[in-house]
């Protein structure tokens, strides 16, 4: 049997075991300090550890290559190119409003998710939940305030972004399509803000949404008070306003519908268009400028 050739001795397993344990302890005495020293050495240089290198794929010494990799190998940053025109970082040209709009969208998503923990979209609870948020939830009031002001700020930022894009002629070839995506995002931003207006279920939101959706009553063909709607047999109970509100007045169904549009429907649609918008900014050659000025005499007319 192979066992007999082991170091266990002739007639006692116990002596072998003792020896083995002794040997193990001896080895620990020498190995432990050595390994501890080794670990301390690696702690002094954490960027060499396996954990670190598994997360960060490249070194961070200040070399042009690493600067580029810092952007390109990061999923959140790789929307950017590695290098850009030196003048396009100038705030006076871009106003930064597109980026600020996106940042505000992130702020709104964050605060919105937190608000959702405290809010029930029902007629009985909605208003009380807002009171609860304002008076009992820790930081509830600042949370709601921040969500509302960020929403208003986002509308302003979107309009200013569009204004800047127009003034710099950035919608011109080859960016025509992306301008259109931007227009859709503008509309979605307004709709996001508008659907959120009803959610506190107070007089302000109720009447604003009543005024707003009353306009849908007058839609030509599709609203029961609109021109030519009698040809489609429109009534208050089957027209486009009914579809928006889930009823003929702003009530429980309208609250639920605006909640779902506000928290799920429009954010998903807007996110898809945002992905498209950012992707097209890159594919259309980055931001439009600041480009060198072109003189009227240099324009080559396209042949028809």
């Amino acid at each position, binding site marked *: 049997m192979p066992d007999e050739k082991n170091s266990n001795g002739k007639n006692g397993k116990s002596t072998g075991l003792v020896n083995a344990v002794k040997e193990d302890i001896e080895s620990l005495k020498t190995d432990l300090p050595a390994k501890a020293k080794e670990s301390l050495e690696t702690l002094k240089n954490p960027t060499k550890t396996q954990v670190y290198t598994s997360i960060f794929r490249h070194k961070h010494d200040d070399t042009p290559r690493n600067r580029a990799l810092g952007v390109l190998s990061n999923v959140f940053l790789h929307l*950017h190119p590695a290098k850009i025109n030196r003048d396009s970082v100038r705030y006076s*040209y871009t106003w930064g409003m597109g980026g600020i709009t996106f940042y505000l969208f992130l702020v709104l998503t964050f605060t919105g998710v937190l608000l959702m923990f405290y809010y029930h979209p029902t007629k009985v609870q909605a208003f009380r939940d807002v009171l609860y948020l304002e008076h009992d939830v820790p930081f509830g009031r600042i949370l709601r305030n921040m969500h509302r002001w960020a929403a208003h700020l986002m509308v302003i930022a979107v309009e200013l972004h569009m*204004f800047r894009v127009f*003034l710099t002629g950035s919608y011109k070839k080859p960016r025509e399509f992306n301008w*259109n995506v931007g227009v859709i995002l503008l509309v979605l931003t307004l709709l996001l803000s508008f659907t959120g207006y009803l959610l506190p279920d107070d007089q*302000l939101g109720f009447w604003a949404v009543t*005024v707003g959706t009353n306009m849908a009553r007058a839609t030509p063909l599709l609203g029961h008070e609109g021109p030519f709607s009698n040809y489609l047999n429109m009534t208050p109970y089957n027209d486009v306003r009914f579809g928006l509100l889930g009823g003929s007045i702003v009530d429980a169904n309208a609250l639920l519908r605006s909640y779902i549009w506000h928290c799920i429907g429009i954010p998903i649609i807007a996110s898809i268009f945002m992905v498209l918008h950012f992707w097209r900014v890159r594919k259309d050659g980055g931001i439009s400028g600041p480009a060198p000025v072109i003189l009227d005499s240099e324009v080559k007319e396209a042949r028809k």
Partner: protein
Amino acid sequence: MDWKQLWEIMSAPDNVPIVAMIPLLGFYIYLAWRQAKANDSLIEQLEKDPALAKTHHRKAWPFKPGWTKEVHVWPFLLRVEFLAAIIVTIILMIWSISLNAPLEEPANPNLTMNPAKAPWYFLGLQEMLVYFDPWIAGVVMPTLIIFGLMVIPYIDTNPLGAGYYTWKQRKFAIGTFLFGFIVLWVSMITIGTFIRGPGWQWFWPGQTWDHNRLIYEVNRDLPDLFGITSNWAKGIFGAAVVGGFFVLGGLLVHAFFRRYNPKNYKRMSLLQYSILMVFFITMIGLPIKMLLRLAFHIKYVWITPWFNV
């Protein structure tokens, strides 16, 4: 002067954004105008001096030989973005701590708010309800605004001014956009926010909101002024006036456009030109209808059994 009333309107939490937006817009218009002016004078200089045009880097900002044309995004752009995020966060923090979001009484369908106002960014559309029936102000106009914005890149055939601020190279485009955005959109919002009081009546800033005020305004329809009584005649007359407005307006705009924008005019196809005309003249029609209503108390121009304009 009712300062309290004025303060109540200005400081109503949901009006703060539009109060903030007006100076912000002023600042950005100034910023754009300053750069446009610098670029325009550079363009003028380069046009006079073709030799310089060949060597100049063609930006109003300084550029020295030896400077790289491109910089790394990390850190030169990312630090700007990071800073912007921090500044926006600080603004939001201060704003959220100092001003509470509005919360009125619980919703009550039996108690109408007076005035019942839409959120501030829709007040321009709500203001249009004074001048147009809801199907135009609430449905057709917003649709036209959206489509009007969308067609801009396809009808603007001017290749100049892409990627830099300029005024002289794009007078028509920028003038039209400023008119639509500042004069129509922002100023209508301002009227809706600050001027309109109970009953959607006109109260000058600082005038006390009188909930019992009645205005005996006799609004007339345009056909009535001409003594037209029969429904058929009213319909035909209105169609002729509206049609005439588009035809005459079109001719007038055409006369100016082909004289002052000959190159763009030549570049445009019939489709592009007619789309431009339709949107442009419809846009001009809005302030004209406002003027008719505010100055001459004219309610409808075109009366038919199905719709009124």
